[in-house]
């Protein structure tokens, strides 16, 4: 017998986790001598109070949808892809090469080509860790961490020694040509007559991200491959007994995961910076872990969790602008969310389960043992 109804697992538990994370963060703000409620209102005003704020919130959320989906797809196969950071870095390289080397006639074609390239580069970066996990039994967490660092070094080398324009000092590629610039969310909404602030980084990639959510939903719950991935994640021996090839599933699943992480680059590299700089991923690969945990690895949950973290990222930036609370507060909140939803889940779950057990006992009037 499960003590808790499904809705409680999906909404109540993440909510309690979130409240715990916020309360502790509030205490941290109090400890450094600021007013937590005022900080919260600055964050809400800055991130959600204007279409300008929304333009940034949605931009960050787009990044987190991609990385969150990446982590979630791997989670379904019981794989922990901690390498989103490196895969998104490589995705950036894929986008930069496509945008710089080929003269595109229009941004629509460029976007399609860049998406494919970003996904291919991200997927490529997850093949070796996936192969080593599947064939040689080396732990995927360790190899993907190592590949994050290798990706950072590789990108540093490629940018500084190959892609940097002659005479330029800062480690970045040249600006992408005009034809590859993606229309911003402001441009799109204004053309429909909806007023929205211009000059914010949210762009057409948001819709690509939402489409990716739908695709991932169909992949995981409506296709044979998705069924195999979930079966493999639930029980490896059972999946193998049912004729599912573990090597194939591990590698394909990780390539999808890496591809999704890589596709983040069309948002931050092609949509926002319009050139490739060092460290452009800015930890979004890791925030994907929090997003996937919080969103219970379901696309709908991931969109909501990505919005939450988009709000935190933009709100945190506003916070450091207007108060003396630095934006690292967001890192702390993110850490606490990961801690409570991922690692200390049992601490929150057990008392809630007990409450539900007590409630169901009252209703039925009989005493139910835990064995039922």
């Amino acid at each position, binding site marked *: 017998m499960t003590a808790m109804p499904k809705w409680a697992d999906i909404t109540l538990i993440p909510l309690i986790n979130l409240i715990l994370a916020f309360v502790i963060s509030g205490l941290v703000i109090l400890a450094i001598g600021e007013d937590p409620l005022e900080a919260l209102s600055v964050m809400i005003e800055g991130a959600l109070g204007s279409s300008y704020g929304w333009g940034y919130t949605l931009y960050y959320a787009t990044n987190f949808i991609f990385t969150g989906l990446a982590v979630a797809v791997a989670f379904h196969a019981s794989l922990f892809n901690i390498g989103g950071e490196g895969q998104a870095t490589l995705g950036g390289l894929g986008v930069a090469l496509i945008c710089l080397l080929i003269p595109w006639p229009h941004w629509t074609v460029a976007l399609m080509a860049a998406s494919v390239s970003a996904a291919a580069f991200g997927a490529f970066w997850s093949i070796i860790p996936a192969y080593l996990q599947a064939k040689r039994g080396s732990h995927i967490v360790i*190899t993907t961490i190592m590949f994050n660092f290798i990706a950072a070094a590789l990108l540093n080398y490629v940018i500084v020694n190959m892609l940097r324009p002659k005479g330029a000092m800062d480690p970045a590629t040249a600006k992408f040509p005009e034809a590859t610039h993606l229309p911003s969310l402001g441009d799109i909404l204004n053309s429909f007559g909806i007023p929205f602030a211009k000059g914010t980084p949210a762009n057409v990639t948001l819709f690509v991200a939402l489409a990716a959510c739908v695709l991932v939903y169909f992949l995981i719950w409506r296709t044979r491959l998705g069924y195999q991935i979930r079966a493999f994640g639930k029980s490896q021996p059972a999946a193998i007994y049912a004729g599912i090839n573990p090597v194939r599933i591990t590698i394909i699943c990780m390539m999808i995961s890496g591809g999704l992480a890589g596709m983040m680059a069309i948002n931050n590299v092609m949509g926002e910076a319009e050139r490739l700089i060092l460290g452009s991923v800015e930890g979004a690969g890791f925030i994907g872990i929090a997003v996937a945990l919080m969103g219970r690895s379901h696309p709908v949950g991931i969109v909501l969790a990505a919005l939450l973290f988009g709000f935190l990222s933009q709100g945190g930036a506003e916070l450091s602008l207007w108060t003396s609370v630095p934006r690292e507060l967001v890192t702390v909140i993110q850490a606490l969310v990961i801690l409570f939803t991922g690692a200390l889940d049992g601490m929150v779950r057990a008392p809630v389960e007990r409450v539900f057990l007590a409630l169901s006992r009252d209703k039925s009037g009989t005493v139910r043992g835990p064995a039922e």
Partner: protein
Amino acid sequence: MDFLTILQILDSALRLATPLLFACLAGLFSERAGIFDIGLEGKMLGAAFFSAATAFTTGSVWLGLLAGIAASMVLSGIHGLASITFKGNQLISGVAINFLASGLTVLIGLSWFKLGGQTPALQGNARFSGIDLPFAEALSNVPVIGPIYAEVLSGHTFLVYLALLAVPLSWYVLFRTRFGLRLRAVGENPAAVDTAGVSVVHLRYAAIAIAGVLCGLAGAYLSTGLGASFVREMTAGRGFIALAALIFAKWRPWYALYATFLFGLLEAVSNRYPSLDLGAFTLPSQFMQALPYILTVVILAGFVGKAIPPRAGGQPYVKER
């Protein structure tokens, strides 16, 4: 490259290997007891901040060292709570600890010192100074051995020697004591240890506490021995290099010394020669930075001697009912 340059590189390799060695041994104790610890980085960072902050405020590096160890122990405690008591995911707990340390050190640092997340520079008794080993001066004129003794081995801070001492000590504790036997057993087959009437929970907490102390020493060394202040993100991936060294060493103390010294040497060489000219081709500095990670992946791939982790690693122990 003359003899003196080689000595200087070896000297700096020893310095740079020290935090890696402490952290690697911390991981060794933790993982031998079956607790994955990817929070080494965060624990080091927390310890580095609190030891520098305390050393600056009190003017005593020893109090700083204690504060660093305490900070690292607190984070270890969170890891233990998540992975032992509440049987959560050890990897996710480690990730959370890394972020917690990364955010809190800057947050508190800005609030206390208002220097962009740094602590003020440490001077005098607020940092560890070098210890000249006996007869270093007198022996320096003896050919070959003299300069090695005087240049490479002598003149380091207390913590460097403590790290070197920690290697045989760890070996002794793990392989020659009853506690060590039980600790290793808990990492291989916790059910058997439980059947023998020994508490799995106590042993795992003990292992995590030792890891906390060692990470505390690693962090304290970074900010009060190697450097002279805390700088944000100053661990710069060292926790992960230590993790790599641990795999490289196949979870054995003496090999941990060799692996961390090798990685320290790589860092020292790439500090000295940003691009290493090997005549036929030039090794870029980025390659040198990535080399520890590449080597670890090669080792993990099992093509050069297979690295087999403790069998019960990463799994919370649940008593049978």
